[in-house]
């Protein structure tokens, strides 16, 4: 029920993001979702891709520091209050969000929320119990 996410260390200098996306494109790797977290000196690029292993090898061999972490992908209806509903559940269940980002899938009916919790097991249990659809890696790639 977890999705593998690629995280890449980025120094704050021009062209790094372009370089990463170009390398992935050369290897025919499709990016499904991404977010960049940044500080004054550095950033962390987080990516959901269709081929995690290949993306990891490609970036590592190009000298990037890469790690693979697990995140949870929750599907909600793409309508007003969709995110608010999930966050309310999260608050009621006293789950702590480390970070999150979102994308809307091609059909435009549903949105996918990517979460990293401090306690992933508890989060999966709580979200399933309250009726949310949790997507697997394959499901995200086939959207």
């Amino acid at each position, binding site marked *: 029920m977890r999705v593998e*996410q690629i995280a890449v260390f980025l*120094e704050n200098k021009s062209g790094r993001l372009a370089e990463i996306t170009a390398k992935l494109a050369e290897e025919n790797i499709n990016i499904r979702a991404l977010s960049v977290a940044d*500080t004054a*000196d*550095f950033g962390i690029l987080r990516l959901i891709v269709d081929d995690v292993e290949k993306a990891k090898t490609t970036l590592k061999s190009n*000298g990037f*520091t890469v*790690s693979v972490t697990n995140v949870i992908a929750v599907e909600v209806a793409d309508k007003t209050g969709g995110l608010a509903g999930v966050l309310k559940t999260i608050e009621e269940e006293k789950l702590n969000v480390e*970070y999150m980002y979102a994308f809307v899938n091609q059909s435009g009916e549903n949105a996918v929320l990517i979460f990293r919790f401090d306690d992933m097991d508890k989060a999966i249990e709580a979200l399933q119990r309250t009726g949310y659809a949790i997507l697997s890696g394959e499901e995200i790639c086939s959207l």
Partner: protein
Amino acid sequence: MTLYWEEEIETLPRVGLESIQLKRLQHLVARVYKTVAPYREKMDAAGVKPKDIQSLADLTKLPFTVKEDLRDNYPFGLFTVPMDQVVRVHASSGTTGKPTVVGYTKKDIKTWSGLMARALTCAGATSSDMIHNAYGYGLFTGGLGAHYGIERLGATVIPVSGGNTKRQITIMKDFKSSVLLATPSYALNLAETMNALGVDPKSLSLRVGVFGAEPWSENMRDEVERKLNIKAVDIYGLSEVIGPGVAMQCLEGEKGLHIFEDHFLPEIIDPDTGEVLPLGEKGELVFTTLTKEAFPIIRYRTKDITRLLYDECACGRTMVRMDKVTGRTDDMLIIRGVNVFPSQIEHVLMGTKGVEPHYQIVVNREGNMDTMSVEVEVSEDIFSDEIKTLENLNKRIQMDIKDMLGVSCRVKLVEPKSIQRSEGKAQRVIDNRNL
């Protein structure tokens, strides 16, 4: 069992050693006074004559020699023999101005090879070893100095010199190198390249590494030992004195390097006042050569900071030990009035789990304020997808450096391989201040 190259002299009781030293010192001072005008002029100005040297303590009557003296007499002005007796010269790259040039007679080369063979024996090397000599060959004393010592020892020398790291690893594998000679920063470069090539150091025949030519910390030693799966020992030397083989760490002792005192007389002085410091205190190391012919040197200020340890060593050698050199008076940075040695920062970084031994210190002056930032490469071991983890790491390094130095600095996490790799001596400091 301890291996010795020349057991009798290496284990001579100190009284005997000191009587040899005095005889050699008197002979040296008389010869230098007679043959080298710049030395004679300095001694006359200080009001000291060769006959004033009646005991080893009289050494302090003699004036110091500094790097500028070598530059002023460039290239051969301090040589004591005619050039037809000089069989080799070496020179050190002067970062400012002219290089400093040193020369050797046939006998000097023989002395030096013997001392290098003695040093290698301290590290447990024998004639059966395959010795990978990655010190640079050329005007630098490291490569050729070690080379002749290895041949003298009767071991097999692989004269690979520096650079072309991938080929070095292939050679290590195929030739079964058992002893590595290199700068410690290059040893780490080798380890990193092995990792990238998927070569397991355990699959190699390397047993021991003899590292020198730049100051390195104890934590860096641990790192080299772990990453290359070898025992790492320290060698010390400088071209002005002879080259590598002035002092050497033994395998048995816990700390320090034995100074080959039958050839080199050490002193520790206060770098500011020039006064000799009491036994055991830390200060600038000063050397007088006792046996060199072409280029003897009297009270040469090395700018290296260390102390002398006179306690007994487990190896049975009676020669005094010098502590690992922790810094140089000239690579000491003064940041907002505080003395900072790059080795102190290295010590903090190497003590932080997961931090790679590649770092650079950048010093700037903003307005009237010195700022220091330390660039640290982010390896997979410390990388996290969460900002707070990296920021905590950054803060911890900053705090540890502040605790160690008493001066605050900025820490910048940078991408792997963005700091230039050493092919010889690592450049650790970029000082952008115009002082």
